[in-house]
Structures are given as C-alpha cells and as structure tokens.
C-alpha cells in the first residue's frame, strides 16, 4: 500500500466536499426565466470564474448563492448549507466583496474596519488588513476622499475581514484602470493562495484567464461550458482556419485536420509560394463568443 503526500486541504472544508453545489437552478422574473436549469460546482480552494454577457444570469446566480435572493427551483448547497435558510454562523463563513458603498462616506478607513470587525466571530486585526490591501497610508483618510482603486481595496478588506472560507466577487474590476486592475488581481491571487475559495463573476476574458482555475460560461440562464481557461471550448478549438489567396481571392477553410488541407495546398503547387497563407486556431475570445451565441458556430467546410 502506498501513501501519497497531498497538499493540505483548504481549511473548513471536508475532503471531497465542494464549496458550492448547484443543481437545476431556476429563477424567473415575471414569467421570464433568467436562470433555466443552471448546474454548477465550485471545488473547495479553487478560484472559479463565472463568465458571461450582461443579463446572462451571473449576478442572479451569485445573489442566490449568497442567500439574498430566493430561487424558484433547484438544489443549492453553499459550504454544506442551503443559503435560503442558513443563519448567521453560515454568513460569517462567507465573504462578499460587493459593488455598493462599503460604509459611511464620512468614516475613515480605520474606523470602518474597526466597526465592522464587531460583526465577525474571529475578525482579522485591522492593522493586518490594512497591510494586506496596502491601505496603511490611507488609514486616517475618510472613505469619501479615497480613489476608486482604494475604495475597491477597502471593499476587499471588508469582504475578507471575517476570515471567510468562500469569497464572492461580483464584477470586481469593472471601471478600474489597468494598473488598479493588476493590483487587484494580485490581491485575489493572494486570497486563493491562502486557501480561500473564490467565486468571481466577470465579463472580462483576460480576468477569467489570468485568475481562475476553472471558468464557467453562463449563457441563456445555463452553464454551457466548464473548463480551465486554456481548455475552454475544446471542441471548438479543435477547428483551425486555413486562409490563403488564390487568383487574387481570399480563400478560407475551417477544418479539424489543417495538416491535410495544407498538404493538398502545397501539393497543388510544389515549388511555388502559397500567397497569404495562415493557419489559426480560435483564441479564448473566439471560443467564448461562440459559446454565448454571439457568433454562429460554423460547421466545417468552405466559406464564401
């Protein structure tokens, strides 16, 4: 019998127990189904990104998982409990980095953190939080005078103040400048490295690609694909596009076997140069756009 050394599991989660399990989630607004049988599983300790266009149901899903919105049907388990009926002890185990104003505008950063520490069973000391989100210099600044990036960092500090096992981030970097975004990503990587399960929603592909262990694409109220970012849409990625110029016309072929197409092309003119020859495989963005139905999924074959 062999024993394998495994990395310690994230705290507070039993082995094999996912942080989030969703089966057949349905939510209707006025008869229209925003979520239409969504299935989802987030493993303990991973960073999972829910990707999808606006209105796909990302925020509704997260709000149901957070226990602040009722569902119409389906089974939901978050940290082993049904969020619709879970109590304060459960709430203390999850953290939410919300879009809304974190605290009164006229509080200083330190006052806000000190106050909200009083809501948690085992709050992170304020000084450690300030250091973690790099707001030490602004501790005595009132929230109203913080920059946009600083406010988001304060929101993160407040979201993780109770040492949560699972953190929700709903479109956390919307409206951030590129520098602030990268700093923010570092924070989230830090969280995940510390063993916290992270569930974030975003409509930025680069964000999902750089942060997430796995990406789930939501479209039309369902999860249409789940995979690590570089394996997303494996079937779609198998299709390459071969393009070249023939008699002054662009020709394009989509194929699962680009080498065969190339062999044929080269054989047709063994000594010449095939003008404008390219072979491309779809990137994350192409796959994503096809998954959410923004562009039609073409069948193999010649185009135009």
């Amino acid at each position, binding site marked *: 019998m062999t024993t394998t050394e495994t990395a310690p599991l994230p*705290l507070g989660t039993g082995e094999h127990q996912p942080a989030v399990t969703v089966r057949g989630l349905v939510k209707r*607004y006025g008869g229209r189904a925003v979520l239409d049988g969504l299935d989802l599983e987030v493993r303990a300790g991973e960073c999972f990104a829910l990707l999808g266009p606006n209105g796909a149901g990302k925020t509704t899903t997260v709000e149901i998982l957070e226990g602040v919105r009722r569902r119409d049907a389906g089974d939901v388990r978050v940290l082993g409990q049904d969020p619709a009926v879970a109590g*304060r002890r459960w*709430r203390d185990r999850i953290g939410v980095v919300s879009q809304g104003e974190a605290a*009164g505008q006229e509080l200083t950063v330190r006052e806000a953190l000190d106050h909200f520490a009083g*809501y948690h069973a*085992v709050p992170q000391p304020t000084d450690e939080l300030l250091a*973690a989100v790099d707001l030490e210099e602004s501790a005595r600044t009132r929230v109203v005078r913080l920059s946009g990036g600083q406010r988001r960092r304060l929101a993160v500090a407040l979201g993780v103040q*109770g040492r949560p096992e699972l953190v929700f981030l709903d479109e956390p970097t919307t409206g951030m400048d590129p520098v602030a975004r990268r700093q923010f990503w570092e924070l989230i990587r*830090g969280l995940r490295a510390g063993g916290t399960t992270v569930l974030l929603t975003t409509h930025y592909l680069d964000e999902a690609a750089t942060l997430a262990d796995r990406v789930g694409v939501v479209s039309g109220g369902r999860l249409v694909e789940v995979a690590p970012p570089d394996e997303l849409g494996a079937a779609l990625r198998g299709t390459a596009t071969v393009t070249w110029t023939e008699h002054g016309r662009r020709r394009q072929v989509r194929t699962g076997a680009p080498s065969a197409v190339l062999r044929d092309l080269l054989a047709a003119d063994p000594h010449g140069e095939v003008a404008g020859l390219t072979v491309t495989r779809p990137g994350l963005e192409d796959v994503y756009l096809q998954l959410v139905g923004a562009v039609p999924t073409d069948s193999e074959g010649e185009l135009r």
Partner: protein
Amino acid sequence: MTAVLTPTTHRPAPPSAARIALSRVRLELRLFFRERQQVVFSFAYPVVMLLIFASIMGDEERPGQVPFAQYFLAGIVATGIMLTSFQAVGTSIAAQREAGQLERLQLLGTPPVAYFAGKAGQVLVTAAAQVALLLPVARYVYDVPMPVDVGHWLTFLWVAGLSALAGTVLGVAVSALPGNATATTTAVSALAIVLQFFSGVFFGFLELPGWMQQMASFFPLKWMTQGMRSVFLPDQAGAFEIAGGWEHGKTALVLAAWVIIGVVICVRTFRWRRSEG
C-alpha cells in the same frame, strides 16, 4: 501578504445582536454629526428657529397671557424630536439603502433589530442633546420658566420618549417609500414643514382653521406639541386647548397607536435592498 488573508476553522458564534446594536449606536452618532445636512436641518434647526421667532415675536402673547417664547418652546421641542427621529431616520435609511450600505449589512447577517436599535439609540442621544441645548437658551435668553415640579418633568419624559419612539418607527416606515433617496428626503422634509404649521408650532392651535386642526389631529406632531405645552405652560393655560384640557390620556393613546402602526409598516415593508426582483 498572502499569508495574512487566510480562512479559519475555529469559529465561535458571531457577536450578539446587543453588541452589534451598541456599536451601531456609536457609528450612527458619528455619521450623524459628520453629516452637515443632518446637523443643520435636524439638530440645530429648533435652536435657530427659537432664536429667530422669539426675537421677532418676543412681545406677543398667546391665549392665557402666555409669552410667545414660552408657547413656542413647547412646539419647537416637539418639532426637534420629530426632526431628529422621523426626518433624520427616514432620510438616512433611504440614503444608506441607496448607497448599498444596507445590502452589505444584510450580507454580513446583521440582525435587523440591531440595525433599528442603533437608529433608536442615535435618536435618543441626539434628541437629548438637542433638548439640553434648547432649554438653557429658552431659560436664560428668553426667561422661559422651566417645569415647576417632578410631575411635569415626568410628563416631559413620557411625552418625549413616546414621541421619539413614534418618530423613529415612522421614519423607518417612510424610508420604504418607492423612489430614490432624494425623493424620500423631499417628501419627508415637506411633510415635516407642513405638519409644523398645521400642528400649532408657530401659531396658536386655536387660531388655525377647523379643517387644519382636524387634519393635524390625525398626526403625532399635534399631540406631541400639546403634550409639551402641558409641560412648559402654566396649568391654567390648559383651558385654552380645544378640549379645554391637556388630554394626556388621549395623547398617550394616539402616540402609542402611531408606534404600533409604524411597527406594523416596518415589519411589512422594510427591505435591505433597493428593489426586490
């Protein structure tokens, strides 16, 4: 950095509602006094009005040879309590909800009772501070006599307490009105001003048109001012009230009824979020 933000397994129960309520009182007080609009229009308003009106109308008398300042003090004390409770609570909850602060409280699992207790505690402290500012100004600048005995002070305490309670629950109730925070603030402030005129704060209640008196009788402020007149005016002035007396029983009944109405509305309509989907 990464080592700092780690989850925990050893997790006792979260702090009690009472502890959160206490820290919310401190927070709400801090926010109240840092909010210029609240300080000017809720806290300082009665003192400013007393200074203006008592200076202009200083020589006039109200029925029963009551000097204007003495009559006006009763009304403006009641008005002050209405503003620091009803107006301040209604507008601040609407604003906090709109900013997403209540949403965060919900996500933190804040017991609603702790949130309301925080508001109530803040109202109690600001109203007491306001009265503590108002009475010396009336006493030493305008020679208004203070209540003569313990009985009158006790009347003051129950009228003020019941008024603040009714104002607070009705403030919570009115914050649920549809529309944005600006609309709520406008509606609340307009109602507060109209009620002041209708309820005999500025003019003798007996001098008002009958329809105005009847309308005012539905609302708490009329009973709050009447209760305060029974505290600050000489006993014989009660003969000049509509009923020919102070009507303490009816005052207590009407205010208590509004507390109950307010609580019922709060329970049915209070929401953490801007709109329910």
